[in-house]
C-alpha cells in the first residue's frame, strides 16, 4: 500500500472525507475504462459507494436484480456457446469488476473484524 497526497478543492475534500475507505475503489473503477454494457453495473457500484456505506453494508452488497438477470442471460448464452464478440467483452469486463469488488468486500470484512 502507498500513501498519496493530492490537492483538491475544499468542496471535493469534504465529499472525499466521507467516502474515505472506499475512495481508492471508486478511482480504480473510474480509471479501468469499462466500455461495454458492464458500465451499467459499474455506475450502480459507484453510486452505492458514494453514499458512504458502512463496512457491513459493503459486505451485504450485490448488484441490482436487473444487472443479475443480465448476467444470467449472458451465462445462458455462454453455456450454449452463442455469445457475440461484444457479449464476450462484456463478460470479461464483468469478471474484472467482480475481482475489484471481491477485494473491496474482503477489506470491508477486515474492518468489521477489527471493530
Amino acid at each position, binding site marked *: 500500500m502507498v500513501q498519496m497526497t493530492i490537492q483538491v478543492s475544499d468542496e471535493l475534500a469534504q465529499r472525499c472525507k466521507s467516502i474515505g475507505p472506499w475512495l481508492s475503489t471508486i478511482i480504480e473503477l473510474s480509471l479501468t475504462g469499462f466500455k461495454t454494457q458492464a458500465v451499467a453495473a459499474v455506475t450502480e457500484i459507484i453510486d452505492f459507494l458514494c453514499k458512504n456505506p458502512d463496512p457491513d453494508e459493503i459486505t451485504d452488497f450485490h*448488484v441490482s436484480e436487473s444487472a443479475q438477470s443480465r448476467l*444470467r442471460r449472458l*451465462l445462458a448464452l455462454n*453455456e*450454449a456457446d452463442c455469445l457475440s464478440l461484444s457479449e464476450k467483452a462484456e463478460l470479461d469486463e464483468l*469478471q474484472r469488476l467482480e475481482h475489484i469488488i*471481491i*477485494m473491496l468486500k*474482503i477489506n470491508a470484512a477486515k474492518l468489521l473484524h477489527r471493530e
Partner: protein
Amino acid sequence: MSNSISLHLRKFIAERSLNRCEYCLLPQALALHKHEPDHIIPVQHGGETNKENLAFSCMRCNRNKGPNVGSFDPETGKLVPFYNPRKQNWDEHFKIKDAIIIPLTPEARVTVMIFRLNNEDRITERKCMKEAGLL
C-alpha cells in the same frame, strides 16, 4: 433460454452448497454478482434442469466452464470429465495450499485448468481472504 429455474429450486441449490461456489469455494457473500445454478451437463448436451444436474457456481467458474463437459488431462492427454459436485467430494479431489487450489485427480486437473481456478486474481483474493481469516 427456456430452461428457467424456479425460485424454489434456486433456494435449494444455494442452501445445499452452503452458499459457496461448488467449484472454487468462493462464498457468495464475498461476490459482487450472486452465484447462479449451473448445468453440470449443459442443456445442449442433454443435461436436465434438476437437482442432480445443477451446481451452485460463481460467475467466473460458470463463465469459464461455458459449454464444456470436460477436457484433456494435461498429465495423460486423456479426455476426462470435469469434477462433478453431485457425485464427488471436493476434499477428495482438491486441496488448498498457500492460496493455490491443488488438483489431486484427473477430473480435478481439467477443472483447475479450464475453470482457471488459480489465475492471478483468484490467488490474490485467496491470499487476502486468508489474512482476513475468511479462508
